[in-house]
């Protein structure tokens, strides 16, 4: 266990963490800002992965080019999902929202399993064989670098959307006061549906980017739902940037955990972290109030 191994683990962690961050930012928009408890987040990400896989298999579209298409399709699905299923129970308790989205997630996961089977899939890109060397000890697999760049751009775009567009302002206004916002001429459900769709789309984009470097199976999204909640809580509820930072932290923590204790403990450590933050600092470690 020399220093370089640890350094390599940190680099890997940051590269993985960028994709986590994207999933987490989508959740931060849906849960942190809009207060919609979305237990189907990972299932939507998984669906994005399958969409990218089908695009690659049948149309030969490389996921690194195909992700905007996947994002667009999943945006439409997320938007309709809000309008058709979540909107009717608007105003009821978190309890019901959790159960509803949990049901949607289960139905999506097992629906996919019914259609595509439970087999593991993987795609093969020439890019996967390229490695970049930094110094003599640090090696980075090229696809991770590409996905990191795309994730950075997508995350930046999402931040711009929330901070500088009318829709983003409307979303933050709803987060501040959901009774006053509609009185100011904000169409509550249109904004919520848009943000839900966008959050889902961002998760699906992260899914497309994960496709070349991950195994694909129907349950692949399960752990990401919980991870996304962990990120939002760690990052401080309403903070998109906080969730992104938490994603990077989670990536590095998991990578180092894998190096020293083994991969199996990585997820457990996320949850221990989560329980500690919930009990000690419910405001999140990056506890800022605004985006």
């Amino acid at each position, binding site marked *: 266990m020399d220093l370089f191994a640890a350094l390599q683990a940190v680099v890997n962690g940051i590269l993985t963490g960028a994709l986590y961050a994207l999933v987490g930012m989508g959740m931060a928009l849906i849960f942190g800002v809009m207060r919609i408890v979305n237990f189907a987040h990972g299932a939507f990400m998984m669906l994005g992965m399958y969409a990218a896989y089908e695009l690659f298999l049948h149309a030969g579209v490389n996921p690194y080019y195909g992700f905007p298409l996947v994002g667009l399709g999943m945006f439409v699905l997320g938007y309709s999902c809000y309008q058709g299923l979540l909107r*009717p129970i608007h105003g009821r308790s*978190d309890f019901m929202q959790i159960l509803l989205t949990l049901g949607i997630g289960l139905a999506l996961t097992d629906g996919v399993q019914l259609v595509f089977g439970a087999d593991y899939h993987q795609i093969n890109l020439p890019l996967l064989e390229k490695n970049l060397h930094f110094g003599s000890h640090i090696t980075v697999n090229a696809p991770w670098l590409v996905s990191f760049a795309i994730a950075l751009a997508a995350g930046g775009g999402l931040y711009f959307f929330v901070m500088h567009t009318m829709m983003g302002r409307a979303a933050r206004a709803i987060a501040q006061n959901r009774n006053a916002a509609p009185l100011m001429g904000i169409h509550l459900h249109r904004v919520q549906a848009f943000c839900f769709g966008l959050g889902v789309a961002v998760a699906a984009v992260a899914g497309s980017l994960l496709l070349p470097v991950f195994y694909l199976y129907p349950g692949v999204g399960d752990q990401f739902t919980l991870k996304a909640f962990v990120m939002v809580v760690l990052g401080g509820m309403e903070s998109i940037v906080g969730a992104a930072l938490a994603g990077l932290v989670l990536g590095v923590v998991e990578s180092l955990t894998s190096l020293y204790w083994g991969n199996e403990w990585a997820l457990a450590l996320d949850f221990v972290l989560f329980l500690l933050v919930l009990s000690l600092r419910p405001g999140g470690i990056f506890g800022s109030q605004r985006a």
Partner: protein
Amino acid sequence: MKRAHLLLGAAALVVSLLVPLVVQSDYILQVLFRIYLFAALGLAWNLVGGYAGQLSLGHAAYFGAGAYGLALFTRAGLPVWLALVLLIAVALLFALLIGGVSFRLRGPYFALATIAFAEVLHAAAKNLPRVTGGDVGVPVPALFASHVHRSFYFCAVLLTAAAAWATVAISRSRFGYQLMAIREDQDTALSVGIHAARTKLNALLVSSVFTALGGALYASLFLFIVPDQVLSIDLSNEIAIVAMLGGAGTVLGPLVGSAVLETAAELFKNEFQEAHLLIYGILLVVVVLFLPEGIVGGAAALLRRRGAKGGWRAASE
């Protein structure tokens, strides 16, 4: 009214206990075992989820405590009765931990914390092979040597009866009214002097005992357990769905929910094999959108409406 309910309950118990005289098939007895087991688990969940209105999605933690407790304490050479006492103690300890951390929080955090805690236990069971056997699993002693299916069936019926009795007793007690007050409006409950955190914790403690006993019973029937079976998120979900489908916050709800869900699941398993959770997902969506009070709650509302039309007094509470 009360006496009529008591008589009905006693009659149902006697009929349930007489079933094995008619049903000889081990397969059907095992399905019935599962129905009663999940009815008991649903009733236990219902105390927290239905009466106190706190959504636990981590009841697998107590179930797993019961299953692994029985396996590990007996492997350590302890007699079964002592193992049962100790596994209840472990479940209570888990409930204290999880409740202590999360009942101070509001909104969805309790649900999230329960999942996180159960998942930590799941990972620990998988990754500590020297203690738990890891993914390979661990053998569980048989509680009964002869008439296996019949004996387990009796146990499940008795556990359900005990859980139903506890639910009725609690729902009519001061404790039960405090729980319902917290469900309806925690701030108002606090303002009239109800110690919300402690009251919710007490409900969780009672709930964890029944859930752990269910876990021990289940484990002993299968003689062998692995983490993905007794500590999985799917199990936690199933327990919650049973109660929600039948009707949370009612005594009959989890019984009806378990009968419907477990029968449906059994049929779906043959039809769709691994994708049988699909029915859980669809049922959840349907229940939340169209039947938020569950089958029993919906039927009661229907009866009330009928009754009001015909000028009869509402038949149920």
